[in-house]
């Protein structure tokens, strides 16, 4: 009996172990595949062509710079929009809202997270695009700005739910201590609760940026997809083409193994590297934070 229990234990532990290692395996295999398909592009496509400013692959113009800048512009501004809204909503739900509002807001944010991005893109085309064109008097509403607003909306729920969980794990004693020392509610939130939950909040921001970086469908529908090289600040209010939209719209038609195919995979590698950098930066910042907190506590 005792032996059987032990054997079960070993089996279940190893199954769980395999599950854990499998994600490492999958990431490794994906990276290998990307490298295998994409790296030949560096060899086959001249560097000068690859880092030129014109993307028109069916005539062998493989300049990926406009695509990189398109992605950066849209992602950065989406994050700037989503950050204050996301963290603000999380603080409100976790720290300020009365119980019944909390019970109402949480599922609504989850529903927002569940709306497929293609639906948001559709609403974007029919409502947001015309609105911004008239409101900001632009030549067209299909711009980086419209894309950033929609992406912000898409990444807010991610930021809210993760940041709110992080705030909830801060022990009530911290807040009580803050208030007992005469700090106002806002001072307690800003000076005590938020720093205590910093690791989780940073993770939330990181996931939000990752969501914005990888989003494809909504962006493809509302940014206009013109591979324009940014030369001035007004680029924000003109059409751009992102890396994800380029892969999504061109992958279906491209001949396997061709230069165009390899360059699309190279773009995939770059996207992979971008999200890796975001992850590394975020984890570096959060571990440094923990060390300092430990120092204070000891």
């Amino acid at each position, binding site marked *: 009996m005792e032996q059987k229990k032990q054997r079960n234990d070993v089996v279940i532990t190893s199954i769980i172990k395999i599950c854990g290692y499998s994600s490492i395996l999958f990431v490794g295999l994906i990276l290998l595949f990307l490298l295998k398909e994409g790296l030949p592009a560096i060899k086959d496509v001249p560097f000068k062509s690859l880092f030129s400013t014109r993307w028109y692959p069916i*005539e062998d113009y493989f300049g990926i710079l406009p695509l990189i800048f398109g992605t950066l512009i849209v992602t950065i501004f989406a994050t700037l929009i989503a950050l204050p809204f996301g963290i603000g909503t999380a603080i409100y739900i976790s720290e300020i809202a009365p119980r019944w509002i909390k019970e109402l807001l949480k599922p609504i944010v989850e529903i927002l997270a569940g709306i497929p991005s293609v639906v948001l893109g559709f609403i974007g085309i029919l409502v947001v695009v015309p609105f911004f064109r008239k409101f900001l008097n632009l030549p067209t509403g299909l711009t980086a700005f419209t894309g950033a607003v929609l992406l912000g909306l898409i990444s807010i729920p991610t930021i809210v739910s993760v940041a709110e969980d992080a705030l909830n794990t801060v022990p009530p004693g911290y807040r009580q201590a803050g208030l007992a020392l005469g700090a106002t509610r806002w001072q307690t939130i800003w000076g005590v609760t938020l720093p205590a939950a910093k690791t989780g909040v940073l993770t939330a921001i990181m996931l939000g940026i990752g969501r914005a970086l990888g989003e494809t469908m909504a962006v493809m529908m509302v940014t206009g*997809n013109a591979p324009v090289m940014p030369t001035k600040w007004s680029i924000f209010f003109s059409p751009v083409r992102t890396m994800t939209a380029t892969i999504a719209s061109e992958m279906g*038609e491209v001949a396997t193994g061709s230069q165009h195919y390899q360059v699309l995979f190279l773009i995939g590698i770059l996207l992979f590297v971008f999200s890796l950098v975001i992850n590394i930066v975020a984890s570096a910042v959060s571990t440094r934070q923990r060390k300092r907190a430990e120092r204070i506590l000891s």
Partner: protein
Amino acid sequence: MLITVLCIILIGLTSCGASSVSNASSSSDSAQQSDYIDNKGSDTIVNLALAWAEAYQTVDPEIRISVTGGGSGTGLTALINKSVDIANASRQIKQEEIEAAEAAGLNPQEFVIARDAIAVIINPENPVDNLTLTQLSAIYRGEITNWSEVGGEDRPIVCLSRETNSGTHVFFLESVVRLGDSEDTSIFAAETLLLPSSEGIIAEVRENPNAIGYDGLGYVTSEVKLVGVSSLEEPDFFVLPSVASVADGTYLISRNLYMYTPDVPTGVVKEYIDWILSSEAQEIVSALGFVPILDE
């Protein structure tokens, strides 16, 4: 993309349950001789191909036809990979594709199944009625950027195009942007918006008075305005796209639509293609806004 997803529709026959199950499981490599036809390719043709597949059920209810979109290149690639019986294409097969097919032991056959006009469309508020082919080319090359240069209001021009994987895009590039000159290597201006679907182009043109776009005549709705286009030889003679003006050759921006089979068709595929070229099937062509081919 949307069209691709929506159009993976199997036009099935369910009158006799047992036999339809066995039909469904029969693989498509033996399809030449079976009663299952796999038809894939151009998004431009997909509605037409669906209408034909549906109508064919009354001609021969034993045949099952599956129609999928995805783009002309996708269809031809599938043909070379021997995964379809008929590939739809809104452009002619390329030399490389013929070579690849021959390397795979195929002998692709071409059938012109209809003609299509590419309509140039603008917002109904835009007072411009006509453009010469030269003006259109300059607009899409980015040399003309304001409507006032072509007799319109003082508004920026926003050029809309289909994505580069579209047969329509390639056709417009060759016959309008490059004015049919095969030596010309000019391309669309970088500022040209590349929209993933016909619906996206129609929606933006309908709503934005700055926009100009192009699309197959069959997709154009009454909420946008058609532009008359003149030829290089007779720049003052403007023609609106219509079934009649394509049929008599006066509207310039028109093209053939094709179906390709992996080899000289036999059996049910031959019967189906023969039916498509018949006057009965060609009536469906004009009903969908395409132009029927003349007396077969």
